[in-house]
Every structure is written in structure tokens, then in C-alpha cells.
């Protein structure tokens, strides 16, 4: 980032922006047209141009246009980077030599049953990093909990108290637990805004696994101050802290390839960017005024509550006239990726439903074209999978009809390619294949070349040979994963349309420590393997040539089970790191914040776990038994006057809890007790008052062992 201010957003006139977009979309259109021509010619020459061929061509146009967008984005990114970078960046609007005054900013950390140690250690790192900038006084932190598991909730309260004690954060780090988890994350943030929004000019929204350095936070707020029309400034978070091979490969590809895509995206979108839900700064008042989410027509899965709120919020912000920027060159912004292929699929399942809902909004009145395009790309991110699948099925169908019908192509397309009447003596299907490969892999190849050309950059990826080898292996891995993800996403789209949930295999406890176990992998991937087997065998039986065309698809499916297990292993991830493979600059030159987080977490995870019989209800145990945890918990509860009926119910519930132990209560009953201050006070007093024979064995064990082996109780965050 240069030090002086060189960009005035008002200089980006509509005409200038239109010129950029015209170039971009013309490029997309040109590539799609060229490929469509070749495909149409190929279909024309292999036989009659009937309904099957028309369907194939239509699918091809849609799918090729989709991948062309990615390709052209990367190529425009290359153009921008080769020119020494785009001047028209939001980060260029601030003179970094000057000390910009900052507005009051709330850092929001919405959490929902997350790893408590990770959330609070992350917060500790961010807090410390902000303190080092000397700008801490402008920031407040809010942990906005929607956790609905008793142990999780109590651990969060304990960790919050401990963190505030340790860093002196009372009055700056706040904790709020919602009684009703309405509208998930967007509802959680909206609840904050309704309570405290007026107090803050900006908010930075985090995910539970987000990390941002103090410097990057200060930069974001400074950019907001310098750009009074900016509604949202989104950063481009890097994937970090991956341990499994899968996570490391994702982080590597994100770090290596994203600069091209980000630079290209910023080139054509400018102030009409998108919001990705976290690691972004938002101007609070316009967000309150314009970004409350309306319900969609109908009910879930397609209608009802908007699940993927971020794209829609960006569109609403733009609709109201506020700008949305991508600050892709802000360093020090991180998130964590899913550790395994199956975890990634679980996340996709959620995102798929949310993105498909956006179909409703594509034609919403008042939305900017750029936002419609973002929404469309989000929908296509998932819908393209069943379309690819359908395309491949129809292609197979075409081969079947040729073999069964003994059709002989009347004009052999394997002899030459016809381009606008000119003959190029390359098999036409091969030409098309090469063109597709070019679009898919050229951005990656260019990224590798660009990085290798700069010695320091290459060194930060482990050196040129290792970078080259890692990129090669990444390309192989992503090619093998593509058909598996295609089947996953096709299933998600289908199930979303049918309004069905997707069931997942529960991990076995022992195996969970190091990735996916065989049972989980087999039960999850057997349909992929079966499809691969049937498809591959059929293709080979029909035509060995066709089998070779299908091999890249079939191979990934056939090997889905071992691939999934292999990639999920932390040990293999570690080994690859030791070998210098898939290294990223965040591993070779880690920022102090990530190093500190790693160190703190390893200390946290070394602490003794509660003994097995007490572990499941340890949160409830602490809230009832521990005098301090009980006091903190009751202090954080809102006092309520329950009705006579509920008082009776609570009385009966408390008695059962002490007499029979927590295993006899449902999670809902435990949560109800934890939410009732009167019950929590009563339970603490009565537990310690009642003679042993009146208490469940579980409580007697809890009292005898509590604080025996450690001087402090076991919590998610104590040192």
C-alpha cells in the first residue's frame, strides 16, 4: 500500500466505469461465443441437430459463460498487476502518512456453539494487536452469542470473564447472549444494532474464526472516515491455520491464485462491490436504515427468511446509494477454512440453500446491475453443478444414441476444427477441450509464473521448485475433487428444491481427532464411488475412446473415499508442511498475531479435560456448583417474574436436576433452568445444603472432584 493518497473515487466517472465493464463483459461474451461456435459446429457435424443437441448447446453456453467470467476476471487482474496495480482502489484514498481520526467502532463476533478457546484466544490476539496500534480507545468488542448448548454457553461466560480480567477488558469487551435465536447471524447482528447501534459509527463484523490485525482494523476505519459515501468496505481474508492436507491445499490455492482474481474483480466492480459477511467494516446508520432483511415469498427452503444475508445487504446498501468497496490489498485479515472435504460439503449445503434463495432477488426493483450479477454468480456457484452433471449425462446419452443407432458422423469432426469457415486440422472436440482447459487452468498457471518470477514471492511459498511442485499437486487434487463436489452440490440443489434436509454421518469420537474415519467416508462417498463405477464401466463398454474422455470425471469419483480420508489427515498435512509443500507466506513469514494465537491455543488445549462422566454437562455443573461461575452467570441474566405456572414447572425441574442428575433432563429443560436466575440461585444453594443422600450420584461426584486436581476449575480459557 502506498503512503500517499492518489485516488479520488469521484474521478471514477460512470463513463469510465462503463468502459471498464464494457471491456470485461465483451471479453466474457467473446470467449463464450467462440466456444459456442465450435461446440455448435461439433454437434452439427456428428449427426442430426435435434433436441438433444440443442439442449447440450444451451447447457454449454451457460456453463462456458460461467467459467469465462472467472477466466476474464483473472486476465483483467493480470492486466492490472502488470501495469503496476490499479490506482482506483479504496486503499488509495487515504494518506497513510497522516494520523487519521477514527470513528467509534464496534467489533462484532457472532458465535454459535463455536470452539470457545478459539473464539476468545482470537479475541485476545485482536485486542492486543489493536492495543499496540495505540488506537484501542476507538474500538469496543461484542461477543454476540446464539449458542444453544448449555456447556458452550457457560464456557463462553467463563472465558469472557477470564479474558476481561486478564487483559483489563471490562467496559470494552462485552458479552451478550440472546434468549431467542431469531434469524441466525443476521438476526444476531440486527439485535446488536437495535440495542447499541446508535453508539457506534462503524461496525466490523467477524466470523467466529476471523482474525484481523490491529493495523488492518485501523486502516478499514480510516478508509471509512476518508470516504463518507462508503457503506461497506470488504477485505479479502486469507485462509490460515489449516492443519489437514485439505485445509493446507485450500489455503495455498487461495493465497497463490486470489491476487489475480481480486485485482480483476476490483477493476470492473469498483464501488459496486459485494459483502461476504465478515472481515468487513460497515457504516452503522445506513445499515440500520436500509439493510433490515425482508422475508421472501413462500416458505423455506426457497422462500421465507433470507439465509445468505451478505449479498443482499450489499445490494440494499447500493440501492440506497451507499458504495460498497473491496479492499483486496489490505493485509492482515484471515479466516479459517473447513478441515476436510466432508466439512466443506456441510458448509456448502448451508450456503447452497441461501444462495439459491437469491433467485428471487435477481429481478428486484432498484437493485444495481452489478449486484444482480453478484447474486447470479452466487446462484450459479451451486446450480452450475447439476447443470454440468446434466451436460455430462446428455453427452453420454448422445454417445449411447450413436452407438445404439450406429450413427456415423457425416463430416468427421476428429479430422479438423471449423472456425468461421476456416479449417484448423486439430480434432474439434480436442480443440474445445483445450479451450476449456485454458479457461480453467490458465489463471492458475499465470499466477504461478508471476509468483516464480519474483524471487522473494517464490521464497515466501517455499522456493521455486517447491512452489511449482505444490501448484502441480494442487491442480491434480482440485481436478480430482471437482467431480465429487459436482455430485455433492447437485444433491444439495436437488434436495433444496425438494425442501429436504441432508443427513450427515456423525464422526466417531476417536477418529475425530485426526480427520475423516473410514466409516464416515464410506457412508458419505459410496454413492459417488458407485456413480463413478457405473459411469466408467458404461463408458468403456460403449466406446473406449469415450471412456478416456470421461476419465478425469470418473477417476475422482472412483477414488472419492480414499481421497477424502487422505486429505483430511492432520498428520499428512504436517508431513507436507515439513516437506515444504503447499507453504504460504502466512506459514513461512507468519504475522505475530497468528503466531501468538497458535501458541495460546496450544496452551489452552493442553489443559486437563473434565473427567468423562462429568464432561457432557460440565457447563451446567459449573453454573450450579461453582460459586463464581454461578454468580457471574446470574449477574448476566435478566431478572424476570415468572408466572405461577412456570414457577411450579421450574420448582419441579430443579428438584429433578438435583435428585436425578442432568442426564434425566432434556437440553431444552437445562437451557430453561440456565435462563432462570431464581432457579440458578436456588440450585446453587440447595446443592451445597442438601445432604449427600438427597443428591444424584453425579452431583456427589462433581462436588468431590471439583478443583481437586487443579487449583482452578477447568475452563476454555485459563492460564
Amino acid at each position, binding site marked *: 500500500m502506498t503512503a500517499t493518497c492518489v485516488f479520488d473515487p469521484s474521478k471514477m466517472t460512470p463513463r469510465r466505469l462503463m468502459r471498464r465493464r464494457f471491456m470485461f463483459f465483451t471479453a466474457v461474451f467473446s470467449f463464450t461465443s467462440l466456444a459456442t461456435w465450435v461446440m455448435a459446429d461439433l454437434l452439427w457435424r456428428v449427426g442430426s441437430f*435435434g*433436441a*438433444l443437441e440443442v*439442449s447440450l448447446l444451451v447447457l454449454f453456453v451457460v456453463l462456458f459463460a460461467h467459467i469465462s467470467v472467472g477466466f476474464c476476471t483473472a486476465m483483467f487482474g493480470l492486466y492490472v498487476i502488470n501495469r503496476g496495480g490499479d490506482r482506483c482502489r479504496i486503499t488509495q484514498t487515504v494518506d497513510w502518512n497522516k494520523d487519521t481520526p477514527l470513528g467509534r467502532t464496534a467489533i462484532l463476533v457472532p458465535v454459535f456453539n463455536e470452539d470457545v478457546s478459539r473464539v476468545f484466544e482470537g479475541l485476545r490476539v485482536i485486542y492486543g494487536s489493536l492495543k499496540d496500534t495505540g488506537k484501542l480507545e476507538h474500538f469496543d468488542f*461484542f461477543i454476540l452469542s446464539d449458542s444453544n448448548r448449555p456447556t458452550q454457553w457457560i464456557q463462553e461466560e467463563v472465558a469472557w*470473564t477470564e479474558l476481561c*480480567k486478564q487483559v483489563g477488558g*471490562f*467496559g470494552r469487551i462485552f458479552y451478550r447472549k440472546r434468549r431467542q435465536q431469531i434469524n441466525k447471524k443476521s438476526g444476531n447482528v*440486527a439485535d446488536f*444494532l*437495535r*440495542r*447499541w*447501534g*446508535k*453508539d457506534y459509527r462503524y461496525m466490523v463484523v467477524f466470523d467466529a474464526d476471523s482474525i484481523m490485525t490491529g493495523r488492518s482494523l485501523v486502516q478499514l476505519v480510516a478508509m471509512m472516515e476518508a470516504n463518507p459515501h462508503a457503506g461497506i468496505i470488504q477485505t479479502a481474508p486469507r485462509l490460515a491455520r489449516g492443519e489437514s492436507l485439505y485445509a493446507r491445499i485450500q489455503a495455498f490455492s487461495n493465497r497463490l491464485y486470489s491476487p489475480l482474481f481480486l485485482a480483476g474483480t476490483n477493476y470492473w466492480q469498483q464501488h459496486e462491490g459485494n459483502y461476504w459477511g465478515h472481515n468487513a467494516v460497515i457504516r452503522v446508520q445506513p445499515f*440500520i436504515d436500509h439493510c*433490515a*432483511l*425482508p*422475508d421472501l*415469498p*413462500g416458505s423455506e427452503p*426457497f*422462500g421465507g427468511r433470507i439465509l445468505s444475508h451478505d449479498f443482499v445487504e450489499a445490494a*440494499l446498501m447500493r440501492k440506497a446509494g451507499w458504495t460498497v468497496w473491496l479492499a483486496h490489498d489490505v493485509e492482515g485479515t484471515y479466516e479459517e477454512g473447513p478441515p476436510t472435504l466432508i466439512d466443506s460439503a456441510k458448509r456448502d449445503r448451508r450456503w447452497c440453500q441461501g444462495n439459491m434463495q437469491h*433467485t*428471487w*432477488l*435477481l*429481478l*428486484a*426493483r*432498484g437493485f444495481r446491475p452489478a449486484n444482480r450479477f453478484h447474486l447470479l454468480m452466487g446462484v450459479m456457484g451451486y446450480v452450475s453443478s447439476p447443470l454440468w452433471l446434466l451436460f455430462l449425462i*446428455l453427452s453420454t*446419452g448422445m454417445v449411447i*444414441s450413436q452407438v*445404439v443407432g450406429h450413427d456415423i458422423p457425416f463430416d468427421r469432426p476428429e479430422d479438423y476444427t471449423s472456425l468461421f469457415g476456416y479449417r484448423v486440422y486439430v480434432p474439434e472436440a480436442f480443440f474445445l477441450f483445450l479451450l476449456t482447459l485454458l479457461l480453467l487452468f490458465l489463471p492458475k498457471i499465470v499466477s504461478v509464473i508471476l509468483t516464480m518470477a519474483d524471487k522473494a514471492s517464490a521464497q515466501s511459498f517455499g522456493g521455486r521448485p517447491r512452489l511449482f511442485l505444490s501448484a502441480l499437486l494442487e491442480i491434480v487434487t482440485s481436478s480430482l475433487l471437482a467431480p465429487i463436489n459436482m455430485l455433492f452440490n447437485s444433491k444439495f440443489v436437488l434436495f433444496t428444491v*425438494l425442501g429436504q434436509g441432508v443427513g450427515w454421518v456423525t464422526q466417531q469420537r476417536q477418529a475425530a481427532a485426526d480427520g475423516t474415519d473410514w466409516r464416515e467416508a464410506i457412508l458419505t462417498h459410496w454413492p459417488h464411488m458407485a456413480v463413478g463405477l457405473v459411469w466408467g464401466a458404461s463408458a468403456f463398454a460403449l466406446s473406449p475412446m469415450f471412456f478416456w474422455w470421461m476419465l478425469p470425471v470418473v477417476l475422482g469419483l472412483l477414488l472419492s473415499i480414499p481421497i477424502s480420508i487422505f486429505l483430511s489427515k492432520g498428520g499428512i498435512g504436517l508431513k507436507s508442511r515439513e516437506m515444504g509443500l503447499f507453504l504460504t507466506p502466512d506459514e513461512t513469514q507468519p504475522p505475530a498475531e497468528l503466531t501468538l494465537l497458535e501458541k495460546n491455543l496450544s496452551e489452552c488445549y493442553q489443559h486437563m479435560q473434565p473427567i468423562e462422566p462429568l464432561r457432557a454437562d460440565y457447563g451446567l455443573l459449573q453454573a450450579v456448583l*461453582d*460459586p*463464581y461461575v*454461578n*454468580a*457471574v452467570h*446470574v*449477574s*448476566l441474566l435478566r431478572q424476570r417474574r415468572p408466572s405461577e405456572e412456570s414457577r411450579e414447572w421450574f420448582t419441579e425441574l430443579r428438584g429433578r436436576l438435583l435428585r436425578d442428575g442432568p442426564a434425566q433432563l432434556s437440553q431444552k429443560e437445562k437451557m430453561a433452568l440456565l435462563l432462570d436466575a431464581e432457579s440458578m440461585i436456588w440450585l446453587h*444453594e440447595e446443592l*451445597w*445444603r*442438601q*445432604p*449427600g443422600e438427597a443428591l444424584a450420584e453425579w452431583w456427589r461426584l462433581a462436588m*468431590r472432584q*471439583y*478443583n481437586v486436581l487443579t*487449583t*482452578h476449575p477447568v475452563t476454555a480459557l485459563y492460564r
Partner: protein
Amino acid sequence: MELSLESLSSFRPRTGTLEEWNAAYVRVEDYLRAHRIHNRLHQSRLIQVILVRAAKRHERMPTVSPTTLAAEETEKWMDDWFGAVLGTTDHSHERIAIDGRVALLLCDGPQRWPYAFLEDKNVPQDFAQAMTASAMEAGPDMKTSNMVPQPLDFGVISETAGEVLERIERYPLLGMLALWALFLGVLAAIFYWTR
């Protein structure tokens, strides 16, 4: 603490069984340990004072378990002590107990002043100051805002589709028939294409 160690060493409860008093001892010990009072010397002094008080009450209330009486005595002593240290003797029992324990936790009382807990006479000055200065704020004062969704015009196509969808949702049978019709349509198309 009004009893000396000499007088405590001759303590013999006149009512209740040995098992009952042992159970009461263990309960008070557990409770103090839950308060992170790990100083054995201090712990045993507190336990004995509590048990002596409980034993006196047990003579008047022999039907009540010594464990219960000991727990009540502990609570009462703590209430008095917290009230005195924090200057909140006029508050309710619950309030004193909760505020007192929170204050003790926040100032790390048991760790930093291992002999101060339940000390009636010689409360260290800095400990008392730390206790009264301890404050926990879960959230700042609320300044409520109104965040209401603005109606969104989804456009003619989406609105029409929405109306159709909502109508179909009212008639689930119709929805199922439409789905089956779609399925049959796909089958028919595949049949036609593969002729």
C-alpha cells in the same frame, strides 16, 4: 473468628452421629475448595468455626442434617462478611452473595490474599479496595434503534412466481403432483432423446 484453635481442638458435637459430622466437614471443605480456598491451614480453621456454629444450632434443631446446617452457616458468614467488606449489608441475601462472589472473583481474592477470605477483623486494606472496585459490565447502556425491513419489490416475474409458490404451498397435493409431472416430463424427454 471468635474461636481460638485451642477451644476448637476440644470441639465435640453433642448431637448427631460421627458420619453426619464427617459428611458436613467434607461438604464445607468441598465448598471452600470450590471457592478456590486452597490454603489448608486457613481452610481448616474456617471449617472448624463453621462446624462449631452448626453444632450449636443442631442441638436446638436435631432433625436437620448437620450438612445443611453447616452449609447455611457458611452462607450466613459469607453474607455478613461480603456485606461488611462491600458495604452492602442492607441488600438482600441473594444480591449480597452474588455481588460478593463476583467481586471476589474479579479481584482474584483467594489467590492474591490467601488469608483474607472470611477474615472478620484484619481485612487487608488493598483487598477491601480491590473488592469494592471490582465491577463487571456485560454490555453498555442501551440506546435503542428501530431497524425495520423495508418492503422490497421483487419484480413482476418473481412476484408472480412467489404467488404461485405460495398457492402451491397451500395445496401440498398439487405440489406433489407438479413434481411428479416434472419427473415424468424428464423421463419422456430422455426417452425421446435416446430414440
